[in-house]
């Protein structure tokens, strides 16, 4: 019998929520705070069992505001930390997602999207929170959001979200949907030595010289944690490199907020991941993500069988948005088709970059994602 402390290396038949939880553990996450909500509850349940086996903490907080705040506290105390929720909880977390941005707190937020607005359709899938992931908290910022489209990716991208959070000191988001969260599929968990794990940069100056918000060349400041003797201050107020409040300096605001945005923007080539299928000679490109991308792949293959030159750009990184690649595709293709389980969100980004190239949007709400035939029909109309 494997020791309780080991990763579940090997092949499994698992659901996406459990895969996400195991991905977190594999990434080195040792703190989870959350509040039960369909369809993300299984992540919390699984971690309530697994965290203590790894000496980690699981706590069910009084709400999602508190969950997010506790995650920040744990991260500043030195642990990799995450929470998991769905739309209604994601809304409550926005306040402290902003605090995580401002205090450059590495952490992971999993949002398993269901139908909204409000309580909406708890047990049905949606892709309605993708703009909220980008703009949900007030003020200007940039962050990272990944969209898994399989159980395997619920594991892989959770781990990747931790790596990005630690690299850039940002709240990184995993935007799953009810279907990838609840479906069972094959999952292969690699042995620990085959996993790429990134840990936050640590200070390399004497304690007296440490400035908690003084960035290196990559625009990311090294991070000290509580209890290490650095005696540093962090605040949600606009601050200087010492972390001291600067509430009336335009210069401080300009410098800080620009850097917070630029540390993602200027590093986007390193962050962005897409999967391309048959795009080289494509006349029609489909841009899709999450569960919908699987129907889209099937549609593109069927189109090829019928002699239509179609291809798929699957967004793995939603934010930062791969705008350069989309702009190239727009120059090459006659049309771009964007199917989404919302009333038109990522399509706005595609349109922004498509210029003259027509963009056809295909909306679907409720129980099922688009069928391959529905997407095929749209490809055909635009070919």
């Amino acid at each position: 019998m494997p020791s309780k402390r080991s990763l579940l290396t090997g092949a499994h038949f698992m659901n996406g929520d459990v895969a996400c939880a195991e991905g977190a553990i594999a990434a080195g996450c040792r703190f989870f705070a959350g509040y039960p909500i369909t369809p993300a509850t299984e992540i919390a349940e699984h971690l309530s069992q697994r965290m203590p086996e790894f000496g980690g903490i699981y706590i069910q907080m009084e709400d999602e505001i508190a969950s997010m705040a506790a995650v920040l506290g744990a991260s500043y105390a030195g642990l990799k930390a995450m929470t998991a929720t769905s739309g209604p909880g994601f809304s409550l977390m926005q306040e402290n997602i902003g605090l995580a941005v401002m205090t450059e707190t590495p952490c992971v937020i999993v949002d398993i999207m269901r139908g909204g607005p409000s309580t909406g359709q708890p047990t049905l899938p949606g892709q309605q929170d993708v703009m909220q992931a980008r703009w949900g908290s007030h003020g200007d910022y940039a962050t990272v959001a990944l969209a898994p489209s399989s159980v395997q990716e619920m594991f892989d991208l959770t781990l990747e979200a931790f790596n990005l959070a630690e690299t850039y000191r940002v709240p990184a988001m995993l935007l799953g949907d009810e279907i990838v969260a609840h479906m069972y599929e094959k999952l292969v968990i690699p042995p620990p030595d085959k996993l790429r794990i990134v840990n936050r940069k640590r200070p390399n100056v004497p304690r007296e010289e440490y400035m908690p918000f003084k960035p290196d060349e990559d625009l990311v400041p090294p991070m000290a944690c509580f209890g290490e003797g650095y005696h540093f201050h962090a605040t949600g107020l606009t601050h200087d490199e010492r972390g001291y409040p600067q509430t009336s300096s335009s210069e401080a605001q300009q410098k800080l907020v620009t850097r917070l945005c630029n540390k993602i923007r200027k590093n986007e080539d390193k962050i962005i991941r897409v999967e391309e299928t048959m795009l080289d000679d494509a006349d029609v490109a489909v841009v899709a993500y999450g569960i919908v991308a699987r129907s889209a792949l099937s549609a593109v293959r069927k189109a090829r069988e019928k002699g239509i030159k179609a291809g798929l750009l699957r967004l793995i990184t939603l934010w930062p948005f791969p705008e350069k690649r989309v702009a190239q595709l727009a120059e090459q293709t006659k049309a771009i088709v964007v199917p989404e389980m919302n009333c038109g969100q990522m399509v706005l980004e595609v349109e922004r970059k498509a210029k003259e190239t027509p963009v056809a949007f295909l909306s679907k709400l409720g129980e099922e994602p688009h069928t391959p035939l529905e997407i095929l029909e749209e490809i055909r109309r635009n070919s």
Partner: protein
Amino acid sequence: MVEQVTHPLSKYLRADMMPHIWCPGCGNGIVLNCFVHALDELKTDLDKLVVVSGIGCIGRTAGYTNTDSFHTTHGRAIAFATGVKLASPELEVVIVSGDGDLFAIGGNHFIHAARRNIGVKVICANNFNYGMTGGQLGPTTPLESLTTTSPYGNIEHPFNLVHLAAAAGAIYVARWTTLHVRRLTQSMKKMMQKEGFCFIEVISPCPEIFGRYNKMRTGLEMMEWFKKASVVESFSDPAKAEITKEKIVVGEFVDTQKLSYEKLFHEKIAQINERSIQ
């Protein structure tokens, strides 16, 4: 040549963040003063202390103490501190914040942290209003008081904070005013030596706004009210610990012991891992 002397307590403060933002006659300085005296008398290891505040005038305290410190969003100091304490139980985590921050927007976090008995220590500067935003009514504003948003007199019943804390499960509960500097300091020392959720309410003057609206224009006049009205009734029923013009009941109300959440959690971790080794 004049010899340079530094104040013996200056190591506890971030001198380069001064001058502080507080008005003349404000009680917040006294709260901070008592706190650093308590740290000094306890010889607290500053490397292992984290001070957390929410938003408000008193919320600037985290910035002024020369330890690891964090200034959260409004109301979330206790929830943030919960994460810190669970992740690093060896750290002493003290929250210094206001009546509005801890009991209006943050009220839910307060009662749940007390219920769980998370080992964080909470100091609330209760000035009966929202100082930072210019003196609106809050959850501790006395009935009939005038504030910028109760211009006809407050009709909301105020919380009795010590009763609330005791009922929610705090293992140490006390109330003092900023006049009671020695007892307040002793209380802070006692609290920091305990393991579990502790709460001290400090009745603190906000002469600049609350006082001005309620016929106590200076810090001194407010302190005179505290002097005239305060009665020490330690270990009396916190439900009866009133705050009125005539009487302010102060003292310690709860001093008990039960296992803290973090202790129980880490015991569970040890048990689980022992079982898996067998």
